[in-house]
């Protein structure tokens, strides 16, 4: 047992430093070993090098994608707007659904800690850990093809993140306004509306705008599983081997995301 009072001798310092070096070396060795193992398994064993061929073949495949299919552009406008709207409404719906989850998931406001807190935490993890494509598949099987399934998928996917960050924001609030309103005889609801909400509303809105920006990106692929938007056009171009059309759709997605990024940047600035 090393007592705090006894000063470290030079030997101790050297030994500790050597031990730390040893631990670091061990961690790096493990990481590099994992890299070698993974490379062996994925890149060397599992890859069909015959199919890939030479570098020239790869270049040829890539060259298919170069070019823009101008004839496609007018028919892209509708799906682009649809993608944008799916992202907007999905985020809004996610926000609506996550209100009870924020309430249950924040430790200091949860109504009945042993039951509601774990429920909310499990729901958050579930929502975040299932990929949006899988959510879309589940909802397509539940409500049928179309934009509605996409909206529900976006809502289900974004709700966990919004709820988690917002619940953390509520847990970190200043407690003095809460006490003040309690001391005035305010009910739980009044405490929430007048003491907690004003403190966290800007934070939550910032989180929602951030998530909305990501949701545009997500909604652009939901069409792959039949949930509408640009992904459907992308998939159709891919299946008809119209590679310039694929490039055009990707450019449209980039434009849409650029717009979203600019809007989100300025609206977050306006919020603060």
């Amino acid at each position, binding site marked *: 047992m090393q007592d705090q009072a006894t000063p470290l001798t030079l030997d101790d310092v050297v030994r500790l430093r050597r031990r730390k070096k040893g631990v670091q070396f061990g961690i790096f060795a493990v990481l590099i070993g*994992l890299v070698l193992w*993974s*490379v062996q398994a994925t890149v060397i064993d*599992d890859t069909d090098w015959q199919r890939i061929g030479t570098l020239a073949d790869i270049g040829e495949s890539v060259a298919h994608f170069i070019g823009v299919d101008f004839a496609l552009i007018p028919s892209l406008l509708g799906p682009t707007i649809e993608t944008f709207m799916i992202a*907007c409404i999905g985020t809004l719906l996610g926000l609506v659904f996550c209100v009870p989850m924020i309430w249950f998931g924040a430790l200091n406001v949860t109504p009945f800690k042993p039951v509601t807190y774990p429920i909310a935490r499990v729901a958050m993890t579930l929502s975040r*850990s299932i990929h949006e494509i899988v959510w879309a598949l589940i909802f397509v099987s539940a*409500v049928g093809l179309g934009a509605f399934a996409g909206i529900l998928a976006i809502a289900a996917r974004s709700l966990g993140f919004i709820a988690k960050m917002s619940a953390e924001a509520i847990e970190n609030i200043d407690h003095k306004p809460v006490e003040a309103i309690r001391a005035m005889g305010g009910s739980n609801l009044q405490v929430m509306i007048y003491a907690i909400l004003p403190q966290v509303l800007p934070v939550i809105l910032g989180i929602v705008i951030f998530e909305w920006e990501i949701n545009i990106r997500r909604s652009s*692929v939901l069409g792959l599983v039949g949930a509408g938007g640009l992904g459907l056009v992308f998939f159709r171009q891919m299946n008809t081997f119209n590679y310039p059309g694929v490039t055009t759709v990707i450019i449209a997605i980039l434009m849409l995301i650029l717009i979203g990024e600019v809007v989100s940047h300025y609206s977050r600035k306006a919020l603060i």
Partner: protein
Amino acid sequence: MTMPEKARPDTLRGDDVHREWSRFKYPQTLINYGVLFGILLFFSYSIHYLNIPLERILGMFGRLGDVLANRYYPPDLDYIADTDYLDSVIETVQMAYLGTLFGLTLAIFLGWFAAYNVSPSRKYIYPVARLVAMGCRSVHEMIWAILFVTILGFGLLPGVLALTMFSIGFAGKLFAEEVESIDMGEVEAIRAMGGTNLQVFVFGVFPQVRVAFTGIAIYTWDVAFRAATVVGFVGAGGMGWYLKRNIMQIETERTAAILLSIVVLVVISELISAWARSRVSKAQ
């Protein structure tokens, strides 16, 4: 009945007399309400445009519950205990690991080039690096996976490359933001000593962002692992292929088991990364 208001002198009218305190004054409130109204209008129009049956949303929960209870329960646990499936899980982990690693290695350079304050050339390299980071990030990992599968064929390699592109964009942007907020004193000191750009980065910038970079790396791994579970959908290897096959065959109990295994894996990886991040921030 005489109104007391009438007795007021007219000089007060039109003046900025506010009896009640409010955070925003007259023109600002109008703008705020206008923006709010515009947003509401947009939402209602898009609900109309997309034909969304709002009344079905509440009824949907009951149906969804029925579907989950009757068809997805009980999960077919024997199916996921199969060695073939477990192999695919290991492949998924390897794919995510390699993709993140390659992506992070490239993201260090991208973050350096795309940070305005230390970029080697603000005129040429900085905009290009920004564009690359944005492009990598905006294209969804599924689209990357489809593109790489088209070019390279099925297998784990396209999956690794798709995750690499995703990680470059994701970590590159965060890393560039981190580099932009460093203390420039050390950078100036090394520049004053005649250090080259590379030396400035290695000795002036990197030591300042090392801890933040480790945090970003762990976070990227976390997100990339989630993406890795589905890139197999389009033939890029890993457990996504099993998921797609079972969903297509409407083997709902097996699908439920696979989803369960994904959730468990994600929770495990999240726990590990939370532990690692707390260790890193403590070691600082």
